[in-house]
């Protein structure tokens, strides 16, 4: 051994665990980010997450958290590596090596580690996403729509993250060599990370700021849009969440430095508390990232049970088993054909009712957006003819529901769901117009009716219905069908057959995206020459193009204007219909939790490494293994428990708040309450998993410290 590089290589071989940890962290972070981004940029996912939609924003938000988390723990692992290496560097410099000499060897080494681990992570990230996706397809659901197609452009993101990791490692490496004072370098591995004293009011004030930030962040958007009539620029509302972040940091600082036990258990927790205090800065930063990641992971995890429970309750509480409507110019099965088909499948149809509906124009406050110096603002403008709604006669409503409704001439009642939710539906109208003849009827809107299966319809008295319907062509008339069956649970095949029959017999004229409106269309054509929901324009404006061949896809079932609501079909196909959403959110949760576990494990092992001497000293002072274990547990528990508690309660409270303010009127509906209960079950399962990883880590830390 005659060359400096040989000494370096020998040291590398002797310290291979440190190198393995750094390489592993880089590899793991790039692997996770690549897998995530491959999934997010896959056309399969993008097709079901509309541009600018909430789901895509949520996924992006959690992705941002995952990137921050991975960046922090990679940086941390690098810092740890250079700190461990500092003694060796210090000895080389003390014995007369030049900085350039040491830096040259270090750069060569870092080049191999960073390029190798990042390349491996980037290369395997795609296959990992693919394998996970296939496992989901195999174990959960498999549809044609679930075929995962990757977009090579995703690798640009992966490369960008890899470039960050490599640049960060070289920066920290260069900085560690650049330290001018050799004495500092030699002694660096013994340096602690003290934090300033933290006043005890940090805890309660932190909780207050957290609650305030969460509330302000969520409500600021509502305030800007509904009160100021102004669409704030992207990111502005995020600023209102800042107090929540500061509050969270204060809570964690208080927890690490002061604890919540006051002085009662001062001597019992003395070692754990004081050691955590001296490594406070990094610990708190790690805890903050873990808390945010846990919150993000839960946000993803909650989607499935919330949607599933809510949907199942909605299916179960529907008053009618089979509901569909169709335009009068369509040749869709009616009672005779339905009964014949039912007979083929051994199904007994009961309570069949088919009643006519009119598509009439209604007045309302049009929402007009304007660009100005402040950005986009909006105002309302009353229009006598704004859009269309479907109207039933009072007798038709009675035929469908069995509920008699007394309405005088000029009186109408909108229909809302049984929970009284009016979300997306404004039942108060004052003028109804036959769009073809121009015949108008001033109306008074009475208290809405409640009937799930006829949500957003209107009911008027029979005479008004007849008068306003005069002169309407078939395109403006529809038929509403409702019927029940005996043993609904066993009629899936019949439901599927009827659904197929309806789709097969619908013409291309009604292959419309839900929300398509003939009056709005005319207004757009007159003003802008193009209507964004016309079938030929949907793709260009980011809406699903309704394709009868894709009738089993979630895009079709969630977007077709005339999608039937068959209880058994919706229930049995729920997982299939929502598969892409479900699996994407589960995947996101898996990635975030994996990052949390790696960060927590790394942090705890660092504590073991940093405090080895303290534990040796305690042993020399006569501390028993039980005492040492308790002290280690005090630290490991804090690293796991505090972020888990904070992240879980934070996101759960946020979710409850969202659910509360989401509906109109504000409040928690029974289905939302059931969803929140299901989320609690997820919390219990994940908490058990976190506990398992905590136990494992605790055992490894004890082993590393030779504590039996």
């Amino acid at each position: 051994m005659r060359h400096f590089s040989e000494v370096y290589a020998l040291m590398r071989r002797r310290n291979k665990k440190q190198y393995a940890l750094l390489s592993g962290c880089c590899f793991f972070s790039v692997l996770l980010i690549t897998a995530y981004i491959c999934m997010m940029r896959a056309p399969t996912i993008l097709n079901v997450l509309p541009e600018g939609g909430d789901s895509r924003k949520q996924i992006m938000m959690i992705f941002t958290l995952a990137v921050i988390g991975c960046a922090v723990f990679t940086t941390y692992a690098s810092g740890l590596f250079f700190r461990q290496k500092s003694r060796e560097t210090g000895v080389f410099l003390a014995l007369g090596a030049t900085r350039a000499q040491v830096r040259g060897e270090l750069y060569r080494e870092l080049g191999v580690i960073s390029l190798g681990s990042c390349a491996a992570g980037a290369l395997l990230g795609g296959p990992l996403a693919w394998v996970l996706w296939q496992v989901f397809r195999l174990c959960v659901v498999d549809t044609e729509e679930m075929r995962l197609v990757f977009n090579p452009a995703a690798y640009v993101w992966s490369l960008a993250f890899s470039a960050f990791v490599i640049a960060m490692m070289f920066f920290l490496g260069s900085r560690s060599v650049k330290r001018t004072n050799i004495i500092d370098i030699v002694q660096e591995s013994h340096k602690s990370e003290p934090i300033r004293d933290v006043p005890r009011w940090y805890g309660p004030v932190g909780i207050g700021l957290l609650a305030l930030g969460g509330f302000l962040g969520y409500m600021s958007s509502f305030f800007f849009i509904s009160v100021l009539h102004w669409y704030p620029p992207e990111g502005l509302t995020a600023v209102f969440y800042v107090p929540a972040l500061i509050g969270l940091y204060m809570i964690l600082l208080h927890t690490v430095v002061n604890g919540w036990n006051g002085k009662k258990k001062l001597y019992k927790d003395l070692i754990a508390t004081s050691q955590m205090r001296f490594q406070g800065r990094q610990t708190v930063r790690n805890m903050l990232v873990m808390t945010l990641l846990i919150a993000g992971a839960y946000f993803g995890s909650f989607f499935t049970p919330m949607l599933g429970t809510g949907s199942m309750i909605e299916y179960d509480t529907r008053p009618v088993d089979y509901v569909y409507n169709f335009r009068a110019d369509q040749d869709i099965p009616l009672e005779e054909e339905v009964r014949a088909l039912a007979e083929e499948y051994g199904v007994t149809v009961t309570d069949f009712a088919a009643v006519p509906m009119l598509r009439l124009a209604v007045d309302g406050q049009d929402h007009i957006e304007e660009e100005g110096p402040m950005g986009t603002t909006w105002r309302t403008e009353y229009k006598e003819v704004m859009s269309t709604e479907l109207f039933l006669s009072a007798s038709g409503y009675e035929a469908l529901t069995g509920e008699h409704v007394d309405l005088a001439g000029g009186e109408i009642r909108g229909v809302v769901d049984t929970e009284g939710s009016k979300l997306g539906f404004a039942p108060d109208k004052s003028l109804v117009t036959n769009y073809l003849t121009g015949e108008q009827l001033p109306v008074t809107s009475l208290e809405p009716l409640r009937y799930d299966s006829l949500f957003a319809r209107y009911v008027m008295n029979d005479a008004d219905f007849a008068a306003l319907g005069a002169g309407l062509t078939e395109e403006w008339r529809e038929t509403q069908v409702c019927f029940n069956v005996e043993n609904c649970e066993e009629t899936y095949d019949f439901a599927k057959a009827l659904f197929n029959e309806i789709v097969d017999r619908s013409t291309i004229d009604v292959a419309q995206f839900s929300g398509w409106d003939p009056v709005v269309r005319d207004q757009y054509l007159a003003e802008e020459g193009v209507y964004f929901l016309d079938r030929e324009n949907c793709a260009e404006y980011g809406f699903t193009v309704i394709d009868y061949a894709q009738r089993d896809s979630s895009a079709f079932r969630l977007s077709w204007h005339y999608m039937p609501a068959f209880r058994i079909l919706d229930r049995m196909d729920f997982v299939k219909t929502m598969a892409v959403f479900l699996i994407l959110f589960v995947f996101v949760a898996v990635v975030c939790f994996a990052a949390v576990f790696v960060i927590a494990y790394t942090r705890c092992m660092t504590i073991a490494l940093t405090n080895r001497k303290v534990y040796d000293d305690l042993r020399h002072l006569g501390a028993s293994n039980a005492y040492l274990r308790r002290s280690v547990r005090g630290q490991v528990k804090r690293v796991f428990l505090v972020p888990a508690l904070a992240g879980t309660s934070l996101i759960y409270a946020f979710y409850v708040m969202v659910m509360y303010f989401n509906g109109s009127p504000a409040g928690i509906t029974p289905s939302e309450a059931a969803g929140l209960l299901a989320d609690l079950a997820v919390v219990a399962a994940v908490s058990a998993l976190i506990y398992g990883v905590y136990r494992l880590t605790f055992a490894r830390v004890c082993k590393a410290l030779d504590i039996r």
Partner: protein
Amino acid sequence: MLTVENLRKSYQVGKTSYEVLKGVSLEVGKGEFVAVMGPSGSGKTTLLNCISCYIPADSGSIRLGKTELARLGEDALAEVRNKQLGFVFQDFLLLDGLTVRQNILLPAIIGGVVSDMTEARADQLCEVFGISAIRDKYPAEISGGEKQRTAVARALINHPLLILADEPTGNLDSKSTRAVIRSFEQAKSALEATIFMVTHDSYAASFCDRVVILRDGVVWKVLEKGATERETFQDQLLDAVREMGRE
């Protein structure tokens, strides 16, 4: 060989500045074995770190031979540390991943001058300091005294003008201390080494030709051993320490 003139050094702690060296001047001649003693906080280690160029002095001059160390750039300083100075630290600072022999060769490897002759010198140093039997062992497998003798051998591998030793016996028992001091004496007599040692230990210092006693950042007294017996010289050192305590 080594000339230190009016050396000053202060540390800033928060807004307070502490002057640790308040104008220290001393000389070490070729082949001399000189110790610096003094109570904690007297500036011994700071003086050594300034001479080693590990920390910059505020003012004053440090000359090694004819070279003014403060004027040297970083690479030139590294070369001085590698070729003209040898270091022995209290904590040994051996690299755990290298064997005793590899540790001894390290300064030569860093300097890029390892030849058959260098390897032969490493083996010779092992013999001189009685560590040949452990030359293929790792630091974790040898005693504290053996570690320090390895460090002394390492300090000598590049034929330095001066060996700087910081509390070399501070972590050792009496037997190991004797062995290390013996190795310094051997270095001086057999290899004509010049040694500048900082120590608390009057026993270790009593082997030196001259002892400089620092107090509050200035040279308080210089004691020459001359033809005095070692035991007598140690008594003189202890008397000086007692006298310093009385003032």
